[in-house]
């Protein structure tokens, strides 16, 4: 490196020698006195030796440092462009909708199949105290007690004097309470924003939806079984329930309960094509908004948790088994004139006909004797296997955890086979019953029941339990029961209802009680191509004058089904038709059978 030194500087007036030193490498050092600099390019001194070497080193270092710094700045610049221009686009306002704003994470809603809200979370304020900061606990307790009627003064005082840093005084205040407490201006009282679960439809869907604790943990129903899912998302959980049909079912059941002074009722509407439960009612019900104060009987879900002896509706299963196994043909018949004696039991008919009955007649007149003959001819093992295939011997898989275990005989002996054939000695839940009945009428496939709405293209897990042909025969038998038998009161004009009534005496202390019954009706419609299985069950109805003192399924539950079908049919777009051709064909079938006397003789016994 060369340094240009002005010769005049070197011999300036002050006699200072401008020796080239290390400090003179900067330009400013060339003109220390601020004199007008005159650079004479023609005259300069070339430095060499150690000085030159030092300057060379300095220059190299300067370049190296500059290089490093410019690389660093370049990198920063690139990153800046990257963040502001390139990546900036991914965080535009369009993705920031009100739903996924931070701080608004709430437990997801539960809605019915049409999007009607069944459970939602509402923002509330909760009051807590930092007891160390409250100056006058006596005063605060007195004032708060006026605003919070549910709390005693002693309780508030104890909390305010506890000296704790955090103590809840009242959860979920009303807006009015909050503003009143706020205007008290007591130090140490604070609010915390919380979410509170609210059930707009209250008792109507209580057993399906369930309820949560004060800390929003699901404690029953779907709230419990889908707890994690509801907490993890803002998307609503869509149930298969339809509140309109739920309402119709609840209204008709409670009307029947009131009329027959019953103690409870249960009802279900089940879609036989995809296994969706469209309505599930258990009465008495409770208000899930105040679940804590509900009595146990109201909280008990009779539709899924309760298991009951279903009585004569089981005759459908016995007939289906015998027909499907090829043990009988539908044109066969049995002699029902003699009661069957097994040990100390005698099996009689409720209304004995004392003659040969065809298979359709056995169901129409609900003959126990005929049904027992069918079951005994099939045998115990076949019955056991058949009921097991229909899912009646183990708890149903379902979307809520309130699932009852069926009660089965300890040892499945012949006498059990006989009583089970007409629905005694086995107790199942209404859920299991409608699911199995769905398989009987939908062409023979047992579907997985669901309380959550299925998408239209979803394949439903299903297993074949009976043949298409048997299913059709059972549908005809069910229609005949409604046209001529104990189910006449369920005949909703235009909707082609088929079904079977059931009446079971309840067991108390190990023996059957005469006047405590379970009266039920299991139906399907439209029977030519069923879409829904409907079930109504009334717990301990008492006979009244209008029914001539009867409180059997045909008198109590069948009219419920009739009104339910009449009201829900138009809602679910089922076209009402009076299919006389189909009915005539089914009728024909009955005439044919009765005309053919004789029939099937009993092999065993």
């Amino acid at each position, binding site marked *: 490196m060369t340094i240009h030194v002005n010769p005049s500087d070197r011999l300036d007036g002050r006699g200072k020698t401008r020796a080239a030193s290390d400090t003179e490498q900067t330009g400013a050092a060339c003109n220390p006195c601020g004199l007008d600099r005159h650079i004479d390019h023609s005259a300069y001194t070339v430095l060499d030796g150690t000085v030159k070497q030092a300057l060379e080193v300095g220059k190299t270092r300067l370049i190296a440092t500059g290089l490093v710094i410019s690389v660093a700045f370049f990198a920063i610049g690139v990153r800046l462009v990257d963040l502001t221009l390139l990546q900036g686009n991914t965080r535009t306002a369009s993705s920031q909708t*009100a739903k996924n*704003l931070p701080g*608004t994470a*709430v437990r997801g809603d539960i809605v019915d199949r*049409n999007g009607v809200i069944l459970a939602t979370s509402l923002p509330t304020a909760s009051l807590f105290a930092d007891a160390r900061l409250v100056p006058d606990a006596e005063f605060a307790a007195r004032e708060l007690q006026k605003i919070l009627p549910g709390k005693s003064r002693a309780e508030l005082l104890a909390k305010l004097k506890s000296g704790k840093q955090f103590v809840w005084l009242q959860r979920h205040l009303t807006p009015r309470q909050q503003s009143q407490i706020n205007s008290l201006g007591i130090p140490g009282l604070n609010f915390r924003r919380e979410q509170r679960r*609210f059930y707009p439809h209250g008792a109507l869907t209580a057993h399906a939806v369930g309820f949560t604790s004060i800390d929003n943990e699901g404690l029953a129903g779907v709230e419990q079984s889908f707890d994690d899912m509801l907490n993890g998302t803002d998307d609503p959980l869509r149930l298969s329930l*339809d509140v*309109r049909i739920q309402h119709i079912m609840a209204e008709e059941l409670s009307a029947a309960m009131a009329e027959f002074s019953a103690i409870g009722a249960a009802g279900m509407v089940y879609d036989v094509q995809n296994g969706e439960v469209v309505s599930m009612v258990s009465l008495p019900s409770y208000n899930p908004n105040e679940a804590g104060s509900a009595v146990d009987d109201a909280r008990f879900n009779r539709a899924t948790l309760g298991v009951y002896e279903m009585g004569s509706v089981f005759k459908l299963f016995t007939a289906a088994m015998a027909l499907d196994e090829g043990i009988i043909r539908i044109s066969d018949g049995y002699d029902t004139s003699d009661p069957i004696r097994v040990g100390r039991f005698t099996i009689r008919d409720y209304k004995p006909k004392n003659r040969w009955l065809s298979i359709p007649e056995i169901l129409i007149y609900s003959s126990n004797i005929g049904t027992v003959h069918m079951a005994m001819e099939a045998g115990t093992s076949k019955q056991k296997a058949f009921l097991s295939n229909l899912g009646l011997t183990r708890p149903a898989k379902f979307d809520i955890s309130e699932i009852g275990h069926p009660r089965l005989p300890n040892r499945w002996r012949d006498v059990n086979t006989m009583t089970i054939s007409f629905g005694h000695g086995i107790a199942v839940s209404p859920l299991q019953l409608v699911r199995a009945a769905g398989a009987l009428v939908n062409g023979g496939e047992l579907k997985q029941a669901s309380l959550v709405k299925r998408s239209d293209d979803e394949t439903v897990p299903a297993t074949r339990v009976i043949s298409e042909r048997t299913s059709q025969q059972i549908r005809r038998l069910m229609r005949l029961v409604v046209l001529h038998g104990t189910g006449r009161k369920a005949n909703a004009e*235009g909707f082609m209802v088929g079904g079977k009534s059931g009446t079971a005496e309840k067991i108390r202390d190990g023996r059957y009680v005469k006047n405590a019954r379970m009266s039920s009706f299991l139906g399907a419609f439209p029977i030519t191509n069923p879409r829904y299985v409907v079930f109504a069950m009334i717990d301990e109805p008492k006979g009244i004058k209008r029914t001539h003192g009867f409180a059997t399924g045909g008198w109590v539950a069948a009219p419920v089904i009739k009104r339910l079908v009449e009201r829900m049919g*138009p809602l679910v777009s089922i076209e009402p038709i009076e299919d006389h051709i189909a009915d005539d064909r089914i009728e024909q079938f009955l005439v044919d059978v009765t005309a053919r006397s004789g029939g099937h003789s009993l092999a065993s016994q």
Partner: protein
Amino acid sequence: MSMNKLALCAWLAACALSIWFAFHIKYKVQELETELGIARAEMQQDSEAIRVLEAEWSFLNQPSHLADLSERHLDFAPLLAEQVVHLDDLPVRESQVSDSQDSEGLEDIIEEILRNAPEPPKKAGNSDSNGNGKRTVPLMRTGASQ
């Protein structure tokens, strides 16, 4: 004015400009962030209000409540099976038969029927989506049809 001084001035000006620009951006961003905060708070308030209103709407749409209102204020009764008639089953008025040539005339008749038919009663929720079966024309009869 030498080149160096000019350059110096240019650099100083650039420096001042960039400082001004940096602060300008900074304040702008702060302002926008405040605005964003307000907007977010408003959105949250609104979405909470919407939740409350939706809950209230659902509460007011309780089927039992609607049934009660309908009973008190309307003449509607539940639809009976016999009130639903197939289009093919409708008799065609003679005069219209003679007037109309072919399908065009039938369309007019259908239109007239649909025009004259009163609205069916609305129940809770939306119409059921899983409709099946053929299209039917509900002909409502009001009141004491039961």
